[in-house]
């Protein structure tokens, strides 16, 4: 026999499964409680550069290296879509650690009070999506203190605000 036997590459399939229990800390913790109990968004204002730290409020504003004080600011849950992408790629499911299909478009929403939030859009039809369209958060009936997951998605409330 002069044929070279086909090489068999043996591979071993291992599932890597580590549950993580992250503490949210005093700042994100306060935001999450506000979202869960009052269906409100809050951020903390940096005394140095005046930036509102949201969606990740922190003890220090890393932009200007200033410690925050206690200047919590309520943020309206309405905003404008500045970027969006439609379906296509899978997304992470924190409960299973696996990827799942994306049900809705993902968008970067600039809230009316300044900060941005990344979240789903209720509107699935790509024809109806436009940069600049106005959206508002739709909250879960019962918040569970899981932060951004306590918002179901953002609903279109108006046409593009672009001139």
């Amino acid at each position: 026999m002069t044929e070279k036997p086909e090489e068999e590459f043996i591979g071993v399939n291992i599932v890597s499964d580590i549950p993580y229990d992250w503490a949210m800390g005093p700042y994100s913790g306060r935001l999450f409680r506000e979202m869960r109990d009052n269906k409100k968004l809050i951020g903390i204002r940096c005394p140095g550069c005046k930036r509102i730290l949201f969606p990740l409020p922190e003890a220090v504003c890393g932009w200007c290296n200033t410690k925050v004080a206690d200047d919590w600011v309520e943020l309206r849950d309405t905003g404008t879509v500045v970027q969006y992408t439609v379906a296509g790629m899978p997304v992470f499911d924190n409960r299973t650690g696996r990827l799942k299909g994306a049900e809705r478009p993902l968008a970067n929403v600039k809230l009316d009070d300044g900060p941005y939030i990344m979240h789903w859009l209720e509107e699935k039809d790509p024809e109806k999506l436009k940069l600049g369209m106005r959206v508002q958060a739709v909250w879960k009936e019962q918040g569970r203190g899981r932060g951004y997951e306590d918002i179901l998605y953002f609903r279109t409330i108006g046409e593009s605000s672009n001139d």
Partner: protein
Amino acid sequence: MANRVAIVGVGLTRQAARRPEVNDPEMVNEAARAALADAQLEIKDIEAVLTNCIDGFDGIHLTDHWLVDGSGSYMKPGMKLHTGGTVGATGAIAAFNMVASGLFDVVLTIGHQKQERGNTMGTLCAAAPGEMREFVQGAIGAFAQAAVQYMANTEAKLEHAAMVRIKADRGACRNPYAHLRLGLKTPEDVAKSPILIWPLRLLDFCPQSCGACALIVASEEKAKKITDKPVWVADHETVHELQSEVVFGGEEEKSQEVASRRLYKRNGITNPIRDIDMAEVYEPSTWEEMYLYEHFHFCERNMGWKMVEKGMTEIEGKFPVNPSGGVLATNAIGATAMIRIAEAALQIRGDAGEHQVTRDVKTAMASGLGGTNWTTLVLLKRSL
């Protein structure tokens, strides 16, 4: 830098979607041996070994510990650095620093990744804090959004992205180590590939590759003994950026602009495309390459697409960028930023074979990109 440092050996491995015929230590060994052969050294001549990658993609905690047999670090000093996508460059810069410090004369540094395993997308999503992880789509989402903005702000069209991809493929087809070598000729060839996230097509984005890269770095005295073609490390700059709302693209100043401004100022570079002869940049998407031309001041803001249209950055062009095929053709993330440095070094040596650029390369720049738009820059010269 306190002491002069040169790259005296370059080792690359063949990159592919899957490298089932080697395990990680063997793959790393390939790159290490290639670098040693290039420098005509043996592992006993190496004083320390750095083995760098992103652990999450490989599914191993403390990857460098597992790889001691393949990397040659057994019974030697060394460590691992990991800064996300820039890790290959950070690993190289760490080697430069170790030698420039005077504590070591000859250091081997390796960047590697085996992305056939595990889930690249999942691991990239895991760069977001746990509580936000469900609201990202890896890096691709951010790049797609940057593309939408680029077309809105400039006269760039989908065809320009296609031209970038074709340029990358032309280089890759002349590079035996590249992963994707497709023979693309026209924008229609690019348009045939499926849409990932509009407007990114599969071909607008880098692949997931398996491969490794190794560099041997030596002090001035040793370098001159080891090779007659040392590639001198003139300077380097690392600039991180806090995660902003618009990670890629957008209006705010970016780390690339800050890093290149500082590097150019320190090195008397006033006209980058004249004072530097070519660049290997870390462009994970076609659109990002156009942004990088602007952020690195190769052209005015909003004019990156024009450089592409005029063919300025082709291999035969006025200012070649990524003659190797770049990240669009090959992306084993742990190795990629180091490969940019390796390719720039080969260009200076005149050893880039079929993808050697037409312009004589005395000075080359290599960039890395990773994390939340972090930038590394390395400036290499044929003579200091």
